[in-house]
């Protein structure tokens, strides 16, 4: 894409008029060409100016009190400490392809994704390319998840990212796009109540896809269920034993690792 083509996308974006596909193309192009951000800012200025072209209208009087009551109990997103990490994190609002009908629902769902992307942005991530040598010896006696881990470590495109549980303990995500496999290993994940379990998710755009559960034992090697697509964010939530019954996360993710 050249700069002229991008200029059209940038204008459409500033007007919030892009199709879903064009919006994706816009995001990708901007990620690849940070130098085009100036154009984006300039277009945003013009759009902000257009916003002044609508009249003022006082909202219903009770909205104010309702909002003040709501924010009282509402956590805020923490600032992203590392600029580069924040820039590579997908923008949560753009991923919302189809907002649900109910406003309350919509807010809850956004909270979920917001929590997720805040984690992605704020986690201090150590990215490394693995050149590990796979040991195929004794394969038969090795659990499938461990075999998968070894295959990933042997793959030329293997990648690992380390994330931290807030309460201590570490989770390492290992994946290979070529193999289409993702394994999460944990070391001293925080203990859970007896009726709770950790659940894994592929988050694709705005959509969480369940990818299996794992327990809170000292060291876990979990192979994620389902098909992996590069760019998915892998998230972990705490759910009731057996996993969330309706296939939707019910809590805010405590770990979120992007695979982009």
């Amino acid at each position, binding site marked *: 894409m050249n700069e002229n083509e991008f*200029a059209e996308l940038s204008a459409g974006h500033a007007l919030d008029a892009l199709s879903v596909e064009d919006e994706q193309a816009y995001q990708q192009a901007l990620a690849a060409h940070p130098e085009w951000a100036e154009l984006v800012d300039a277009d945003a200025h013009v759009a902000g100016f*257009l916003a*002044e072209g609508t*009249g*003022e209208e006082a909202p219903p009087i009770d909205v104010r009190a309702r909002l003040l009551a709501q924010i009282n109990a509402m956590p*805020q997103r923490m600032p992203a400490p590392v600029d580069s990490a924040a820039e590579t994190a997908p923008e949560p609002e753009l991923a919302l392809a189809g907002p649900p009908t109910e*406003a309350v629902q919509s807010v809850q769902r956004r909270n979920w994704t917001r929590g997720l992307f805040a984690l992605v942005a704020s986690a201090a991530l150590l990215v490394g390319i693995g050149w590990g040598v796979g040991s195929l010896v004794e394969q038969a006696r090795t659990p499938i998840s461990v075999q998968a881990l070894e295959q990933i470590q042997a793959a030329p495109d293997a990648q690992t990212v380390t994330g931290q549980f807030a309460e201590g303990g570490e989770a390492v995500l290992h994946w290979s796009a070529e193999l289409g496999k993702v394994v999460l290993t944990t070391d001293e994940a925080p203990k859970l109540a007896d009726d709770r379990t950790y659940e894994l998710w592929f988050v694709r755009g705005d959509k969480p896809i369940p990818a299996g559960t794992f327990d809170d034992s000292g060291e876990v090697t979990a192979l994620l269920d389902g098909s992996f697509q590069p760019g998915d964010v892998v998230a972990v939530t705490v759910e009731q034993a057996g996993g969330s019954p309706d296939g939707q996360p019910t809590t805010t993710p405590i770990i979120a690792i992007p695979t982009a």
Partner: protein
Amino acid sequence: MACWGAMVIDGEEVPEDGQSADHAGELLLRIADGDQVAFAELYDMLSSRVFGLIKRVLVDPSQSEEVLQEVFLEIWQSASGFAPKKGQGRSWILTMAHRRAVDRVRASQSSADRDVRVGVRDAYTQQEGIAEQVELKIEGRRVVRALRTLPDAQREALTLAYFGGYSQSEVAALLGAPLGTIKTRMRDGLNRLRQEMGVAL
């Protein structure tokens, strides 16, 4: 980078010395620290403007009220994402409000609602086109003046997209023009407005 000069926005004069010109931005910084008083102050300062913008795009009062709440809750939650160096707080908020309003339009409006919304139905029976009808509702003399400097085709495309909440392909369908042409018109229209406003690249 951007040169706005000493312009007046809604009667709130931006001082020329640049000191504390961005009151909304200052409030956002305090809100990011969990300051609820600052939040209330920001609401009092901008809720009418934000509601006006949302309702302009969305028309339906109860949906507009819901989106207004979403926007202010998002301001509370993500105020830390506001970067003072990159622009004014006011503009950050209005941009968010417009996007939320358009999200809601895309998600919920049946085509019948939308036709009523911008007077498409009337356009078949009246002389005025859709864009003109949308334009009639644009207030703010500075914006009207700037839009008037544009060629009709560019003004039409910008107006339908921004104030009507239509996507580029919807605008193309409404105007019976190829999508590529509409994209170019929006691009050229924004460029021209930018020059008109004296915003340097």
